[in-house]
C-alpha cells in the first residue's frame, strides 16, 4: 500500500497477470478476502422466521463455492478469493451459483431476480449489490472510487436520516466522504458512519459465520447377508460408535435415530428409535435397537445397515450422572425413562399407562388412564377424606342377582356401610342415580355395590376393596 492514491481506478476486472513476478507481487499485495454478495430484495416482504430459513437454505447452496458464508438481512455474502483460481474467475462462480439459486427461488414461487457484486469488504460488496450490482472490485484501493458514485439509498437510512441527507443535498456516497466525520456522527449517529468506514475497509467488520446444520449418515456393509441378530447387532454397534464420536465432537445428543436395514433386491426395512431423553450412549441405543429387532420379523436377509440422524439436541451431562447414581430418592428418573423406552419398544405404543384422578362425581369417570408417553397432569393429588373407595373398579358394573332385597354374588352380600347417595351427570345425558354400599361376602371379600334408585332398582357390583 505504498501510495494508494496513485493507483485509483475503477477497474471492473483484474488486469491479467503478465509475468510470474507480477503475479506474486499482486498476490502479496492483495492478501485479504474478496466477498461476493447476493442481494435478494424479494425476501424483504417475508416474515422473519421464513426469511431466516430461506437464507439458510440458500447459504447451503453457496457452500459449493465457499466455506465462509455470512448471512445478512436480505443478502448473503461469501468469501471467494480462495476459489477464484479454481473456478476461473468471479463470473464463473456467479454462473454456477445463480442457476442453483434461481431454481430454488422458483421453487418458493418468489421473483427470480437478484443482484450480485464482489468487493474486498463485506459492507462494500453489500452496498454495491444493493445499488444494482454486476460490479466486481478486487482491491481495497479501488473501493473508494467504486463506492463514491452510489446513491445514499444503499445505506438504507431511516426516514429521518433520509430527510436530512436530502436537505443537506447529499445524493451520493462521495458527497458524504467530503464532510467532516465529527459532524456526520452528530447528525447521523456512529453506526451510520461505521457502516461507511467498514465498506472502505477502514474499520474491522465481523462476518456472521454460517454453520451448516449437522447431519449424520453412515452405512456399514455386512461381511455376508444375515438374519442373525448376533451379526446385525455388532454391526449396528459400530455405526452407533461412529455416531457417538460424531456427537461428542459437536457436543450434541440425539433423541431420534433412523435405521435402515438394506436387503438385496427389495425395499429396506425402516426402524426408528425414539428416546424420551436425548442421549448418545452407544450401549443404550444398542439395547433399544435389540428390543426393537426382537419384535421385528425381517422379510429377508440384511446386507447392510444404514444409520441416519437429522435431529439433534444439546448434550446435557447430568443424564450420565443420574444413570450412575444408586437408586436414591428421586434420582432414578433417568433410569425410569430408559425403562419406559424399552417397554414401549417391546410392548408397542400406548401400552404403558399412567393413572390420574378426575373431579367427577360419577365413580366411573373419577379415574382416567392416559398414555405415559404423552404425560398426564403434573403434581401429586392431595388426599381427601371421604366415603371409602375401592382399589379395583370394574370397567362395566356387573349386575347382581337379588334375594329378599339382599344382593347375591358368590353368596349373599352383607351390607356393612352405606348408603352413599351419588347423583350426577344428568346434564351429560349419562346420569347416575345410585346408592352405594360396602358389602362383604361370607368368605370375607369386600365389595363395592350399588342399587339403582330408579328403573329396575337392580343391584350392581362396581369394585373390590382389594
Amino acid at each position: 500500500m505504498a501510495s494508494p492514491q496513485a493507483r485509483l481506478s475503477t477497474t471492473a476486472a483484474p488486469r491479467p497477470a503478465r509475468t510470474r513476478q507480477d503475479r506474486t507481487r499482486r498476490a502479496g499485495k492483495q492478501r485479504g478476502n474478496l466477498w461476493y454478495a447476493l442481494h435478494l430484495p424479494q425476501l424483504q416482504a417475508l416474515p422473519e422466521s421464513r426469511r431466516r430459513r430461506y437464507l439458510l437454505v440458500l447459504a447451503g447452496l453457496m457452500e459449493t463455492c465457499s466455506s465462509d458464508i455470512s448471512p445478512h438481512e436480505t443478502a448473503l455474502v461469501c468469501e471467494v478469493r480462495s476459489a477464484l483460481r479454481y473456478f476461473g474467475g468471479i463470473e464463473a462462480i456467479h454462473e454456477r451459483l445463480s442457476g442453483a439459486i434461481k431454481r430454488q427461488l422458483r421453487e418458493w414461487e418468489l421473483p427470480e431476480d437478484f443482484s450480485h457484486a464482489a468487493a474486498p469488504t463485506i459492507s462494500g460488496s453489500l452496498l454495491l449489490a444493493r445499488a444494482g450490482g454486476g460490479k466486481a472490485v478486487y482491491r481495497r484501493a479501488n473501493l473508494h472510487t467504486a463506492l463514491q458514485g452510489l446513491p445514499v439509498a444503499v445505506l438504507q437510512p431511516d426516514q429521518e436520516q433520509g430527510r436530512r441527507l436530502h436537505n443537506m443535498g447529499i445524493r451520493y456516497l462521495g458527497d458524504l466522504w467530503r464532510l467532516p466525520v465529527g459532524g456526520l456522527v452528530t447528525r447521523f449517529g456512529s453506526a451510520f458512519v461505521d457502516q461507511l468506514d467498514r465498506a472502505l475497509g477502514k474499520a474491522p467488520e465481523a462476518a456472521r459465520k454460517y454453520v451448516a446444520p449437522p447431519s449424520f449418515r453412515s452405512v456399514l456393509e455386512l461381511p455376508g447377508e444375515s438374519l442373525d441378530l448376533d451379526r446385525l447387532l455388532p454391526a449396528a454397534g459400530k455405526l452407533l460408535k461412529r455416531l457417538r464420536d460424531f456427537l461428542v465432537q459437536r457436543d450434541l445428543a440425539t433423541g431420534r435415530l433412523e435405521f435402515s436395514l438394506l436387503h438385496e433386491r427389495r425395499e429396506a426395512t425402516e426402524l426408528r428409535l425414539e428416546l424420551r431423553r436425548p442421549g448418545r450412549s452407544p450401549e443404550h441405543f444398542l439395547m433399544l435397537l435389540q428390543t426393537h429387532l426382537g419384535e421385528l420379523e425381517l422379510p429377508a436377509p440384511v446386507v447392510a445397515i444404514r444409520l441416519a440422524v437429522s435431529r439433534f439436541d444439546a448434550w446435557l451431562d447430568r443424564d450420565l450422572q443420574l444413570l450412575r447414581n444408586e437408586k436414591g430418592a428421586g434420582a432414578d428418573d433417568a433410569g425410569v425413562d430408559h425403562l419406559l423406552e424399552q417397554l414401549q419398544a417391546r410392548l408397542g405404543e400406548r401400552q404403558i399407562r399412567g393413572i390420574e384422578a378426575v373431579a367427577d362425581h360419577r365413580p366411573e369417570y373419577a379415574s382416567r388412564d392416559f398414555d405415559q408417553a404423552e404425560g398426564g397432569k403434573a403434581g401429586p393429588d392431595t388426599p381427601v377424606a371421604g366415603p371409602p373407595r375401592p382399589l379395583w373398579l370394574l370397567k362395566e358394573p356387573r349386575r347382581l342377582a337379588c334375594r329378599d332385597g339382599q344382593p347375591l354374588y358368590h353368596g349373599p352380600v352383607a351390607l356393612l356401610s352405606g348408603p352413599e347417595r351419588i347423583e350426577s351427570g344428568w346434564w351429560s345425558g349419562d346420569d347416575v342415580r345410585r346408592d352405594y354400599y360396602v358389602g362383604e361376602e361370607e368368605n370375607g371379600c369386600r365389595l363395592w355395590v350399588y342399587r339403582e334408585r330408579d328403573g329396575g332398582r337392580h343391584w350392581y357390583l362396581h369394585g373390590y376393596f382389594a
Partner: protein
Amino acid sequence: MSVTGSRAGCKQEIIEALLRDVPDLWRGHYTAAQGEQGVSTGFPGLDGILPNSGWPSRGLVEIVCPRRGMGELQLLVPLMRALTSQGQWVLWVCPPAAPYAPALVQAGVDIGKLLVIAPGASLRNALWSMEKALRSCRLVLAWQNGLSHQVLRRLQLAANTGNSLAVLFQRGNSGCPYSALRLQLSRAGSAGDEGPRVSILRARGNVRCSGVRLGPEALAGE
C-alpha cells in the same frame, strides 16, 4: 479369670461380627434384625412376625390370595405411599382390573409415580417387562398364576440384583423354594370388623410359620 474373660469377650465379638457382616448366616429361630433392615409394612402386627421386622428390602414376595377383595392390595398401600412420596416409581404389570385413582389418592399414594402395563400384554412380555423394571423401579406388582419355579427364581434373581421388590399376587401356593417371602391371606373365621389373617408360608431366615390377624386398619372400606 481375666484371661478366660477376655477370651470369652473375644469370641462374643467374633460372633457378633459374623452376625453383622454375613446376612446369609442361618440363625434358627432368631428373627431379630439380620444385617439388612426390612421396610416396615405399616402394620405393626405383621412387622412383628416378619424377619427384619418388615418387607425384605429386595427379592420376590408372593402373596397368596384365593379371591379378589380380601385386602391383598391394601397390604402394599403403606409401602407404595412411602416409596412414591420419596419419588420412587411403582410399576403395575397387567393388573386384573383398573386401579382406581380416587382410592389411591385417598390412601395418600402419589399416583403420578405409578405406571401400569395394560392387561393385554402376553405372559412373555409381562415377565420380560418385570425383569427389566426390577432394575429401575423400586417396586413391581404383578398378577400371574401358575408360574413355574424356574420363572419365579428368575424374578427373585432379577429383584435381588436390581435391589428392588417384586410382589406377585397369586391364587394358590406355588411352593416355590426361591422366593424371599410368601404370605397367605385368609378371612376364615374373622369377625366383621377384623382384618384378614396373614400367615407366613415361607420366609428367608425364619423357620416358624406363624400367622397374625390384622386389625381393621388393614381393611379398605372402613
